[in-house]
């Protein structure tokens, strides 16, 4: 009976194409000069170069962390290209000037830089390899005082904001990968929503790794000023290659008093083939700070891609009554490994956090949830609810949970629920007996399992996520 669930094949990775586009690429390797070169190419001010150099010096003293439950061969950091930009690099007057080859690529990715997106009410920024290639709807947003642009542009146009907030949530010395990113980050997205403004559309960045041998080190900084609201979506894809590629991003969110930031990710970097060759190493530091009272930060992630995922979107609950949320679906198939979860750091009074994690393992995939809930002495009446469910498809995959709890205030209330289940042959049979194909039956069961997370996603993302899930698991039952 077990045999029916065992054969594992993956449908072709749909985004695995390479775009043949001329790129300006610096030689492999990393030393202080590389950092200076990147900074110079971007025409950065001295304070930023100094910050990068500090990070680089720090990184040199650090060891790659190996406490997570993932295994991979040693990474040669001297064999990575730290900067690659599609040519020409002239400033774009409007999105229509984007290279037609690039536009075609975005078409294949199912995203449109043009006004088509007006219908969907999504403003898009696209970051390919290292450089942001276009932000749509900028004019409309700026009428409301909302800044949505590439990181590089923010450094040029709004240096005071960048200088004030860069590294304020994830310091340059935070961890090995964050330090590396701080030294060599090339671009990313920047958002500022002014006081009392509710951003009227979803802001979205599409990250794409194209050039071979490059690492992608983007940096995202989002600031919601007092009473502001913003919902931000992040999507990621990469070509199929048989070598591993490094992605070490940093995302910092700052929500001031009464502000809300909702950050949603659908991560579909290339996962490697059925044998485990190739794929993206996704080592990401994401953290938000509820800096003022009643601030709220909500992370929702659907992680279906990457050979290795190592990320823990976290919230520092500093303001009284602030709220942190983490909703996660992580799917591993074939030889994928994911070690993901969150940290909720309760500092202010009456702070609340919710963690809902759904891990799905198929093939020989290995899925770990790692979460920390920390209640500091002043966080009176802090509350956390954690729900952590794992689903296994087949019997060669693994699911693990590592919850860490540290409570220094005894008025705190913590609730933890966990479950592990196998996708049922009886469930699949029941659905197929009603005429539903086996593949759809599996998607349906898994989507049902993930429902509490999917309902947190914006509508158009929820559909995409559900489809991706189906594709990732396609063939996971024979």
């Amino acid at each position, binding site marked *: *009976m077990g045999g*029916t669930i065992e054969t594992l094949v993956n449908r072709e990775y749909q985004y695995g194409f390479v775009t043949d586009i001329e790129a300006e690429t610096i030689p492999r390797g990393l030393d202080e000069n590389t950092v200076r070169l990147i900074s110079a190419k971007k025409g950065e001010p001295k304070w930023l170069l100094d910050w990068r150099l500090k990070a680089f010096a720090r990184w040199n003293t650090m060891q790659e962390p190996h406490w997570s439950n993932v295994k991979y061969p040693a990474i040669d950091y001297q064999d990575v290209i730290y900067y690659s930009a599609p040519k020409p690099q002239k400033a774009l007057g409007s999105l229509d000037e984007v290279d037609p080859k690039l536009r075609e690529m975005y078409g294949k990715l199912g995203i449109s830089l043009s006004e088509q997106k007006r219908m969907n009410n999504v403003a898009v920024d696209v970051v390919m390899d290292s450089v942001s290639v276009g932000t749509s709807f900028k004019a409309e947003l700026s009428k409301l005082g909302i800044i949505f642009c590439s990181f590089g542009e923010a450094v040029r146009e709004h240096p005071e904001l960048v200088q004030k907030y860069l590294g304020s949530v994830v310091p340059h010395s935070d961890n090995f990968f964050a330090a590396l990113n701080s030294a060599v980050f090339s671009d990313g997205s920047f958002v500022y929503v002014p006081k009392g403004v509710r951003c009227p559309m979803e802001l979205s960045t599409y990250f794409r790794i194209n050039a071979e041998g490059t690492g992608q080190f983007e940096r995202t900084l989002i600031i919601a000023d007092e009473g502001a609201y913003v919902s931000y979506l992040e999507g990621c894809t990469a070509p199929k290659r048989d070598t591993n590629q490094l992605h070490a991003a940093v995302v910092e969110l700052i929500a001031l008093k009464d502000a809300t930031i909702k950050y949603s990710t659908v991560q579909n970097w290339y996962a490697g083939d059925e044998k485990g060759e190739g794929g993206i190493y996704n080592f990401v530091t994401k953290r938000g700070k509820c800096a003022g009272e009643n601030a709220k930060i909500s992370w929702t992630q659907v992680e279906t891609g990457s050979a290795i995922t190592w990320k823990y979107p976290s919230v520092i609950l500093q303001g009284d009554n602030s709220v942190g949320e983490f909703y996660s679906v992580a799917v591993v198939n074939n030889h994928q490994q994911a070690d993901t979860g969150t940290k909720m750091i309760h500092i202010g009074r009456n702070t609340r956090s919710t963690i809902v994690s759904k891990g799905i393992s198929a093939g020989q995939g290995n899925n770990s949830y790692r979460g920390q809930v920390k209640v500091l002495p002043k966080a009176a009446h802090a509350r956390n609810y954690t729900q952590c469910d794992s689903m296994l498809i087949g019997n060669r995959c693994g699911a693990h949970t590592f919850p860490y709890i540290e409570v220094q205030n005894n008025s705190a209330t913590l609730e933890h629920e966990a479950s592990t289940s196998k996708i*049922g*042959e*009886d*469930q699949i*049979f*029941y*659905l*197929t*007996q*009603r*005429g*539903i*194909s*086996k593949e*759809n039956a599996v998607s*349906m*069961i898994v*989507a*049902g*399992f*993930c*429902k*509490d997370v999917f309902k947190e996603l914006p509508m158009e993302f929820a559909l995409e996520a559900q489809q991706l899930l189906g594709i990732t698991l396609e063939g996971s039952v024979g």
Partner: protein
Amino acid sequence: MLEIKDLHAKVGDRDILRGISLDVAPGEVHAIMGPNGSGKSTLAQVLAGNPAYEVTGGSVTYQGIDLLALQPEERAQQGVFLAFQYPIEIPGVSNAYFLRSAFNSIRAARGQEEVDPLEFLDYMEKKLELVDMDVEMLSRSVNMGFSGGEKKRNEILQMAVLEPKIALLDETDSGLDIDALRIVANGVNALKRPDNATIVVTHYQRLLNYIVPDYVHVLAHGKIVKSGDKSLALELEAKGYDWLVEPQGALA
């Protein structure tokens, strides 16, 4: 429309069906009775194509085609429906979505156009009435937190929605009070047409007062040991099964 010939099946290492033969013509209602563990559910599951059971011999022809060569979903698309003795729970999947997906999958397989959620809701109205179910049941997860009776009614609702050619009802009466039993039986009777057939599995005579069979078969140790008309059910009610069932040792 259904010809079962000398069907053998096992689960794990155990032979459970040991040579079953049965012919079902359109418009007929067959009752399969027999003590617990005699293989009634196994027969129903094998006909529906549950991969947990292995067919080791015999043949099943359905509308002229080899039923055993079809996947479970293909059988369903061809009009085979099984009302489960123990309906399965699917957390997080709404009953409405499940029903519509099933309905549309079957339509698609038959080259018919799919219906959208609003049209489907219209269609559901009459179906819900038939089994006296509240529309609220559609927004709940499939069978989650349903009482035993609700689960059984939900099976009949699915049958009403999918309008099968051959329906296998496995102990649909068990655990129902008399009112629920009547509702379920009325539902089944309302769906009866001259060109479809029903196989009712039960070990009580009770249901057969409402769904009147043309034939009654007694299954024991994986074989049909006696067939008759509806009066056989009454005889079984009076005399029990012992007079028909040899001790298993004698068969082994």
